[in-house]
């Protein structure tokens, strides 16, 4: 594991823990956010008959960097009526919530931030922090629109956590593990060993499982969309109604924190879905590294596959965002409580029955 390698190098457990914790941030999340913001703008532009950013760098590839420089230079406005303490903590909390999830996500078979047995449980728990951060932001802004947005966000995220957890439970039941690393390792081999295709069960059970796994996959994808506030569930930030909701009052780097958290979150949930259903970092066709006998190549390939799966799901999120209108707040609740939760309950029971066959 990466922690042991670094521990051997530095000889200090605390220092190596800090390094391990920082690695995904600097190696992955920041570069990913840079690329994803650019990608989002380009994807939306080309979907809408536009060109998108074209001025900064070749086809605007440096646009995000220019934006960040602009954001850093901006004045950090805190209005007199704001609750200063909460106002300052909120963006940090939101960012920590989405960033901490990366600890338990296995990027390759050799890199995982924290090899803990309750991995998926940890992720669900820490992403709950995001709700607190959003509520704080809305309340501390002392702005009616922000407060409305924050209340909606809290209601929405909590409601959609239930179907997510139920689907995760069905997988935990099926595989007997909450550790994302173990889960990914169990899906090794070819793509028909992915949980989406019934995991490592017998052929008969696999065939029985596939439709229910598909339902589970769709449910968890929809719920995670809602959890990261993306269209059609972007009600907390509904621009046309709430003028962007809980982060209306934020400027400069604090705003950038929310922004970064949003993109980090987008990837985090996609990565979780990929790890649960799409084999995580496992290649669907076997590894070139094993074929030519270069062991070191395998983990690089695994990282690539993981990124491809994660970014692929993020692209679908973008596609949906630029195609669909937004649901209303009561319809959003209806979708969760009346459809997703009952269906995922039934799904959970059926999957349980099939696995004990």
């Amino acid at each position, binding site marked *: 594991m990466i922690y042991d390698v670094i521990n051997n190098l530095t000889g200090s457990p605390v220092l190596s823990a800090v390094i391990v914790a920082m690695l995904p941030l600097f190696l992955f999340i920041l570069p990913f956010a840079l690329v994803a913001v650019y990608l989002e703008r380009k994807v*939306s532009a080309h*979907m*809408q*008959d*536009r060109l998108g950013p074209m001025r900064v760098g070749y086809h605007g590839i440096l646009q995000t960097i220019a934006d960040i420089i602009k954001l850093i230079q901006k004045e950090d406005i805190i209005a007199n009526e704001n609750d200063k303490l909460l106002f300052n903590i909120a963006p940090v909390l939101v960012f920590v919530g989405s960033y901490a999830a990366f600890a338990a996500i296995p990027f390759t078979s050799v890199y995982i931030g924290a090899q803990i047995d309750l991995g998926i449980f940890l992720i669900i728990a820490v992403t709950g922090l995001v709700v607190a951060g959003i509520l704080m932001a809305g309340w501390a802004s002392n702005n*009616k*629109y922000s407060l*409305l947005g924050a209340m909606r966000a809290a209601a929405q995220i909590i409601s959609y956590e239930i179907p997510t957890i139920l689907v995760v439970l069905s997988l935990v039941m099926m595989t007997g593990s909450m550790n994302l690393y173990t889960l990914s390792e169990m899906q090794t081999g070819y793509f028909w060993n992915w949980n989406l295709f019934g995991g490592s069960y017998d052929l008969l059970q696999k065939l029985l499982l596939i439709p229910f796994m598909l339902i589970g996959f769709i449910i968890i994808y929809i719920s995670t969309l809602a959890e990261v506030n993306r*269209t*059609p569930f*972007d*009600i907390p930030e*509904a*621009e*046309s*109604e709430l*003028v962007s909701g809980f982060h209306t009052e934020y400027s400069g780097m604090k705003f950038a924190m929310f922004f970064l958290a949003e993109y980090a979150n987008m990837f985090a949930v996609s990565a979780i879905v990929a790890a649960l259903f799409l084999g995580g970092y496992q290649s669907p066709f076997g590894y070139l590294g094993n074929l030519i006998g270069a062991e070191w190549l395998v983990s690089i390939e695994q990282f690539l596959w993981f990124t491809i799966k994660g970014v692929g799901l993020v692209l679908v999120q973008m596609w949906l965002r*630029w*195609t*669909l*209108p*937004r*649901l*209303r*707040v*009561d*319809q959003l609740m209806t979708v969760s409580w009346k459809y997703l939760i009952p269906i995922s309950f039934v799904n959970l029971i059926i999957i349980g029955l099939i696995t004990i066959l």
Partner: protein
Amino acid sequence: MSFESKENIENKSAVRTEEMVLNMGPQHPSTHGVLRLEITLEGELITKVTPHIGYLHRCFEKHAEAMTYPQVIPYTDRMDYLASMYNEIGYVIGVEKLLKIEVPDRVEYIRVIMGELQRIASHLVALGTYGVDIGAFTPFLYCFRDREKILHLFEITCGARLLYNYIWIGGLSHDLHPDFVRLTREFIKDFKPNIKELNNLLSYNKIFIDRTANVGILPVDTAINFGVTGPNLRASGINWDLRKDDPYSVYQKFDYEIPVGEGKAGTVGDSWDRYYVRVREMEESLKIIEQALDTLPDGDIASAIPKRIKPPAGMIYTRVENPRGELGYFIISDGSINPFRVKVRAPSFVSLQIMDELCRGHLVADVITILGSIDIVLGEIDR
């Protein structure tokens, strides 16, 4: 427990509830201009909506009294800035009636073509921004892409893209560009499939229908009582269109239908109907333009009128079917070169008044759905 004692308990308890007043606008992305809506909320339910207008008031009517008759035309452009051509048509028809002059056939045909192109352009803005209000950003840009082609047609005709000053008393400022007919036909050919695309992307989208159907239902009697006209009235199921019911210009010569709301997605007169009536009106406008292009006569583009326009003393009320409804001009002439009074009946001004009626009992998000569906232009409301 009796009613009073319950109330007492409520008064004593530290927790109390009160209505929240939310100010929407004047700076808000979805008020379609500088409109302020004072919304009284109970939770997220609306109990009252009060529109506050006047942020864009430019004294058009008073100003017109100091202008000569032709000088008023550019000011009419600036009322409903999304349908400038039609504002000019209404005003010019009024002055021509006062002057008792006939205009050449070619002029009438070109006016109809321009008016209907303007109707499509205006509806495209309405539909596109409506999509943005509901949260779908992409249809907005598709609509603006097509509107751009219409603006280009206007630009090659008169040089302006938004405020044209094209329709003059007794004629037009320019004849059509030699390419105009060809380009317009090309536009019609390109645009027809785009309406289908818009329908597939937005109109029949399940989420869009969920958001708009059965929201802000405008019953026929309320619509008539408030004097609502145009697509908003037709969406409630009444076939009332001045182009057919009080014909002006050469509209009788063309064959087209007046779409009315049918309640396909929900109830007759809901927001979806108001939206869809506009989509279908664009199709009908295309029919009119096609026929007008086919039968476009040759001839002069100006009738013989005196240099100084001095209508005889008198008054007139003319009305035309502007993209937003009945646009009326009440012009009083005292025989001088300046109009004594120009009063405008602005369709958006009337439509905005139904906001309170439509919004009560809905959620905050529905205010935007409803406001977008009645398609107001603040330039016209405040004048």
